[in-house]
């Protein structure tokens, strides 16, 4: 008898092992869903906080670049010529005789002396409109209508490479503002032109050019970005419709290998004494796209190791002073020290000050990418898949002194010369190094393989929780989720309506932003009510709250994963808000045994119901970054207008993923629990 029993047991085990391992593993995870989700979320948060520790030093991975291998040959002769140009521009600006016509003429004259092909590019101000269908497309610019609008004039010069094949070009952009030619930073603005001219005059005699050089002295009266993006649009979309009599000359020079935007900024009040010239790098383009890391590395290498210029990137100064981050830094240092005492090979110890700076820089990097708005004219290049970077050079001494100005121009010019020569050596597009990265210092980066980990940890519990909730429902019908699909469908239809409403609101001109905001809110509410009247209440008797939550979690995880592909940084920040909402959602009327846990969860729920609302969430984000004093909820309309004006996908995320999630969260919160 006993033997037979044992045999039967063995057989049972054998059949159990025959069911596939992955299925059993999934079942195990689902049955321990609460534990798994708590562990995963904690791991995600910790992984996010240790990202500055995991940053690696940057390195130049493209062999062909050879930065700094050639001696710079920019001399005082070039700089002195450039200084003459600066003087001429300043005198025109002082005379105040139509500088917007005279300065482009002057620049063109100087370009022609060097033997460059020259033309003027005229562009008008684009109307900042809401284009719901233009998201993700390269350019929303309509063909220019120069009829009776005010227009800007950029001056463009092209040097052909003497022995190059003329198929590739490097673009130098120096923005200047003719409207403000006599203004405060006039000398700095003129110095940008001078800097470009000194490099341009050197390159016009260079024998080693393999790519043509285009210098765009862009008129930044409508902002730096507008002129560059208008020029790039005309460059890439030839307009043949115009009548033959129009004598608009537009010359081209092949595919762009890289764009270098540089402007000189003289800081009036320095925060602290600088012992060196400083160059600040701006790299973020629209929707969190970054130029190839090699481009930043080349600039950083040449600036630091060749010209002795300090390199800065964006950093949130507020976070450096924050006590919380400082305490975290101390903790990280202690943990690193402890780990090292356990095993000397574990070298992730980092001084707390370095951690604090790394965190502040990383936060700035993530925020700039998450916003999806380019941080400078280089963003216009990225729309055409051209790697570009903006260098903001600020001198140590005043530019009013001629000697210091010449020295500064020489230094900055050599930096740009070196970068151009390095890119000139390229044989292919930038492709070797990373495109997906966050920076924690000018020479430290977190690559995609590392920064995916926190997000993966945060999102991983979502499908597990959804599956376990689905199993917990009393209804055993496999199609039971169809009933809950209705509220989901209503919510998402509503969110599409909310997305499109601003298009119609912005048609009504001359409304102050507060009114627009109120109209948008009112319209959205009305749309929701109408949808409920048409489709019926979301709380029908088949809709269990668990099923509703499961469906909500499933839809949110799909939305987050989609967004992580479009703009990872947005998804990363969004997950910090949305994932707790998904995990904690619990109806107020639900009956539980443990009242302590219930009250805690309820408090969390109510807090999240307030903070999870997109308007407050955005205000909270901006408050953390910029300080709470400046934030007002009524500015939401303006910030949203800013986002869609730049075609940022963050707007779509906020309205199409975050907003429905919040609404479903409220549905669950107020579920009747019959």
């Amino acid at each position: 008898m006993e033997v037979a029993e044992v045999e039967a047991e063995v057989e049972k085990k054998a059949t159990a092992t025959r069911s596939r391992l992955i299925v059993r593993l999934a079942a195990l995870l689902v049955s321990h869903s609460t534990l798994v989700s708590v562990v995963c979320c904690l791991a995600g948060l910790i992984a996010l906080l240790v990202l500055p520790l995991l940053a690696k030093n940057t390195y130049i991975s493209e062999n062909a670049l050879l930065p700094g291998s050639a001696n710079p040959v920019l001399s005082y002769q070039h700089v002195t010529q450039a200084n003459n140009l600066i003087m001429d521009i300043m005198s025109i600006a002082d005379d105040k005789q139509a500088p917007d016509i005279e300065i482009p003429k002057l620049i063109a004259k100087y370009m022609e002396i060097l033997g460059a092909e020259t033309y003027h590019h005229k562009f008008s101000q684009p109307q900042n409109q809401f284009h719901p269908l233009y998201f993700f497309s390269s350019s929303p610019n309509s063909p220019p209508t120069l009829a009776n609008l005010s227009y800007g004039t950029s001056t463009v010069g092209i040097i052909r490479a003497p022995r190059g094949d003329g198929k590739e070009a490097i673009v130098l952009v120096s923005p200047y503002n003719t409207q403000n030619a006599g203004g405060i930073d006039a000398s700095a603005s003129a110095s940008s032109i001078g800097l470009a001219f000194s490099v341009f005059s050197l390159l016009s005699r260079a024998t080693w050019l393999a790519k043509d050089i285009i210098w765009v002295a862009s008129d930044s009266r409508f902002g730096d970005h507008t002129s560059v993006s208008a020029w790039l649009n005309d460059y890439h979309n030839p307009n043949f419709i115009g009548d033959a009599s129009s004598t608009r000359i537009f010359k081209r020079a092949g595919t762009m290998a890289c764009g270098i935007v540089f402007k000189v900024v003289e800081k009036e009040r320095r925060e602290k004494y600088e012992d060196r010239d400083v160059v600040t790098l701006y790299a973020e383009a629209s929707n969190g796209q970054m130029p190839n890391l090699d481009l930043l590395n080349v600039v950083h290498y040449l600036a630091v190791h060749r010209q002795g210029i300090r390199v800065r990137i964006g950093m949130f100064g507020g976070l450096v002073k924050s006590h919380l981050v400082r305490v975290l830094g101390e903790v990280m240092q202690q943990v690193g020290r402890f780990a090292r005492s356990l095993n000397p090979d574990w070298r992730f110890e980092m001084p707390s000050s370095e951690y604090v700076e790394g965190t502040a820089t990383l936060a700035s990097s993530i925020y700039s990418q998450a916003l999806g708005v380019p941080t400078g004219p280089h963003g216009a290049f990225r729309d055409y898949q051209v790697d570009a970077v903006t260098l903001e050079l600020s001198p140590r001494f005043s530019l009013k002194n001629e000697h210091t100005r010449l020295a500064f121009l020489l230094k900055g010019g050599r930096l740009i010369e070196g970068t151009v020569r390095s890119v000139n050596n390229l044989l292919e597009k930038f492709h070797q190094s990373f495109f997906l990265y966050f920076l924690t210092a000018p020479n430290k980066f977190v690559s995609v393989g590392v920064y995916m980990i926190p997000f993966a940890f945060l999102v991983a519990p979502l499908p597990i929780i959804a599956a376990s909730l689905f199993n917990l429902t009393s209804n055993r019908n496999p199609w039971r989720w169809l009933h809950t699909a209705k509220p989901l469908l209503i919510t998402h239809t509503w969110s599409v309506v909310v997305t499109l409403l601003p298009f119609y609101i912005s048609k009504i001109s001359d409304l102050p932003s507060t009114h627009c905001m109120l109209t948008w809110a009112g319209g959205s509410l009305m749309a929701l009510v109408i949808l409920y009247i048409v489709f019926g209440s979301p709380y029908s008797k088949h809709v269990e709250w668990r099923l509703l939550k499961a469906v909500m979690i499933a839809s949110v995880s799909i939305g987050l994963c989609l967004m992580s592909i479009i703009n990872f940084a947005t998804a990363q920040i969004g997950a910090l808000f949305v994932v707790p909402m998904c995990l904690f959602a619990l109806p107020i009327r639900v009956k539980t045994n443990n009242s302590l846990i219930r009250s805690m969860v309820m408090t969390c729920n109510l807090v999240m119901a307030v903070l999870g609302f997109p308007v407050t969430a955005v205000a909270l984000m901006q408050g953390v970054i910029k300080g709470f004093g400046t934030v007002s909820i009524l500015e939401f309309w303006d910030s949203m207008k800013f986002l869609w004006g730049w075609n940022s996908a963050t707007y779509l995320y906020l309205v199409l993923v975050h907003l429905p999630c919040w609404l479903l969260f409220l549905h669950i919160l107020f579920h009747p629990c019959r």
Partner: protein
Amino acid sequence: MASDPKGSQLRRILLIFFSLSIILPLSSPSPTMHNNNWAVLVCTSRFWFNYRHMANTLSLYRTVKRLGIPDERIILMLADDMACNARNNYPAQVFNNENHQLNLYGDNVEVDYRGYEVTVENFLRVLTGRHEASVPRSKRLLSDEGSHILLYMTGHGGNEFLKFQDTEELQSHDLADAVKQMKEKNRFKELLIMVDTCQAATLFSQLQSPGVVAIGSSMKGENSYSHHLDPDVGVSVVDRFTFYTLAFFERLDMYSNASLNSLFTSYDPTLLMSTAYYRTDLYERPLNMVPVTNFFGSVMKTIPTDSAYPGFLVAHASEYATISAETETARVVLEDEADHSKTYDQSEKGLQHILDEWLKLLEGKLGVKDPEVLVAYGLGSMVLLLTISTWLSS
């Protein structure tokens, strides 16, 4: 007798001289004599930043040309054209030193395979001689069983491979197979393979054909480094191994007798930043007995003829053989080389006419087929030798 070293030396030389003059024409046909030199110089990498590989190869090209290998016996393969690259600050010139003293791409550079012609396939075809019928003679390695071949390769390599053109690889067993085919087809007598690349030593691991000596710039796991950067051109212009090889050859001319051993031991690992590795187990001759000019130079052999017609050459054939054999003897003994030649000169002066007389007599008699007569003459010469030596020592 020790008091008269000069005399004994003289005797020794005469002894060698006479015995050789008798024995050589009689001995059975020995392995074919070294009678010509070829060089195959290969630069395998493209792209501007690999400027130094082309400069390496062109430097070697210039060196072997200077040391006497004529252009028609050099197969030069260059995978890219740096001289005409738009990035070149000095159009149509290639330098291997930042002092720009020497333009390697001057006149008389005959590139046999260039650009995308430099492939593994073409390289193996050149070595094994399996060309399509349309390939001109100038692009073929027309070596024979008496050839000494120098094979120089540079580029980017790794463990047991050398990269060609950024797309293909030559693996160590490909190279070994080609060399084996060459041996089977009697395409060389001796082959020197010189490779300047990372982990060059691994490329030789599969070689098994006799008569091959190989040297590489680095051992397994080591990189080969560039020597210096030219700040005007903006690239590295020469590799360390090649730089020091060239430095060695700059001191030599085509009459120098520096041995392969002295070349191989001249590499200083601290300067090279890698360990030069040479493989000699397939090679019979001791390295210190082989002049570098056996590979890097050319056989300098003039054939004196009284008449352009072969029928009249019979009388001179053996004389010629004698002289060449004697030169060989003198050259192989490398140590105290200078002393030897001095003594030789003196003896030549003093005994010139006697020798000439005796030789003429010998030659006259050698025509006779009867071995007994030959033996008699041989004994006679021994007697003569004995008399002379006694006379000299007294």
